């Protein structure tokens, strides 16, 4: 079982690689019969690898149905008995791509207030106070001083940005990555800036 040894090496290099990941086992390159597959499964289980399905196995093991036996998958290919239809299947009505209406607030956001708008961009004409927070699914625009927290792309949007006329923020976050005031370049404080995500770090750059 040279393959298992190499798998162990791989796990050692990247211990989190299989962590909590659902894995589909492709058996097409093996000629394993039922006991062989059973042995392989228990080996994998002992390494905390979660197998949720198998494909490409020998036809003799296709129909095994015992508890704990991962279901056979067929790679999405039609198995047999393709139904031939005269009329094309009714295409499901394409859901209208919802135009995310931005949220416009023309008052200062006070300490302790929290603006949460998962649907899209938030524009604030005024300042965001220390101790206040603005969370947006999209980008955040502050036409004033940003002294509190700005959390853009809150539901996972790496393209979201944060703009403000004066950076005095306690925290900037985009797509789950954040930066506190302490990690920001002091030279940027008090200046108009924008922040965006460049791979795995938040870049803050002056706008003027």
């Amino acid at each position, binding site marked *: 079982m040279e393959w298992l040894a190499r798998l162990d090496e791989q796990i050692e290099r990247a211990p989190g690689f299989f962590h909590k990941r659902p894995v589909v086992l492709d058996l097409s390159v093996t000629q394993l019969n039922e006991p062989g597959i059973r042995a392989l499964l228990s080996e994998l289980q002992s390494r905390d690898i979660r197998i949720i399905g198998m494909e490409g196995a020998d036809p003799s093991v296709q129909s095994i149905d015992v508890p704990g036996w991962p279901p056979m998958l067929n790679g999405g290919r039609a198995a047999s008995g393709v139904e031939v239809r005269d009329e094309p299947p009714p295409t499901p009505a394409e859901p209208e791509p919802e135009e995310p209406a931005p949220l416009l607030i023309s*008052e200062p*956001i*006070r*300490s*302790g*207030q929290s603006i949460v708008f998962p649907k899209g961009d938030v524009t604030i004409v005024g*300042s965001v*106070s*220390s101790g206040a927070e603005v969370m947006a699914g999209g980008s955040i625009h502050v036409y004033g001083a940003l*002294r509190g927290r700005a959390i853009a792309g809150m539901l996972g949007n790496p393209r979201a940005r944060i703009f403000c006329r004066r950076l005095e923020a306690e925290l900037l976050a985009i797509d789950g990555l954040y930066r506190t005031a302490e990690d920001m370049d002091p030279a940027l404080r008090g200046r108009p800036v924008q922040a965006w995500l460049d791979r795995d770090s938040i870049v803050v750059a002056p706008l003027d």
Partner: protein
Amino acid sequence: MAKVLVVTSGKGGVGKTTSTASLGAALAQGGQRVVVIDFDVGLRNLDLVMGAERRVVFDLINVVQGDAKLAQALIRDKRIDTLSLLPASQTRDKDALTSDGVAKVLAELREKFDWVICDSPAGIEKGATLAMYHADAAVVVTNPEVSSVRDSDRIIGLLDSKTQRAERGERMEKHLLLTRYDSARAARGEMLKTEDVLEILSIPLLGIIPESEEVLRASNIGAPITLSNPASAAGRAYFDAAKRLRGEDIPMTVPVERRGLMGKLFGRRVA
């Protein structure tokens, strides 16, 4: 038309009670009918600052609960007969205050007075929210330092969301009263500048009260500074603030103690 004013700050020790007493007295000295109410149930102080602590029989909670009539609980000031005090209870719990009860008392007071001034307790708990809930206007007392400014900011947010006016979609009139202002320390950059505080809080300035021994002395002898020492810098600042509350347009200055030439040099405009 009576106006209900709440004097609030979030933070403790910034000068709410002193300002309530001084503004109330200044308005009353100008001929207005004024009642000041202590909402700090359990930690009442306004009676001391007003010099009425030995005349308290009934209090706000007695009135709210119907144990006493309003007329029985109101204490008329001995020095200015248009000024009255409705004290807080020192022994009761603030849970005894109900919104309906407070609303009824305030409605009754509106009939009798031109100004109903509510001295809010510190914090953002029930006492403070009840004191502000029925108000028409707010005086936000702030010291020129970061913690006080942030707490005031929080309170302004609550004034704009958790009051009857806000719930009806009406605007709450808000005024900033900057207290314990020390010109010398401000000049040395040891305190927040007035314009910084105004920029952060973005509400109109009602007045700047200079830090003064006189204010402390006035509180301890139980007389608002506008009564005990009307010519003092703080006294004049409160008189100016009271006039602005009545809608007069008074240029904004930081009054200083009169010390001849030096005083004139420092008595400059700031905003």
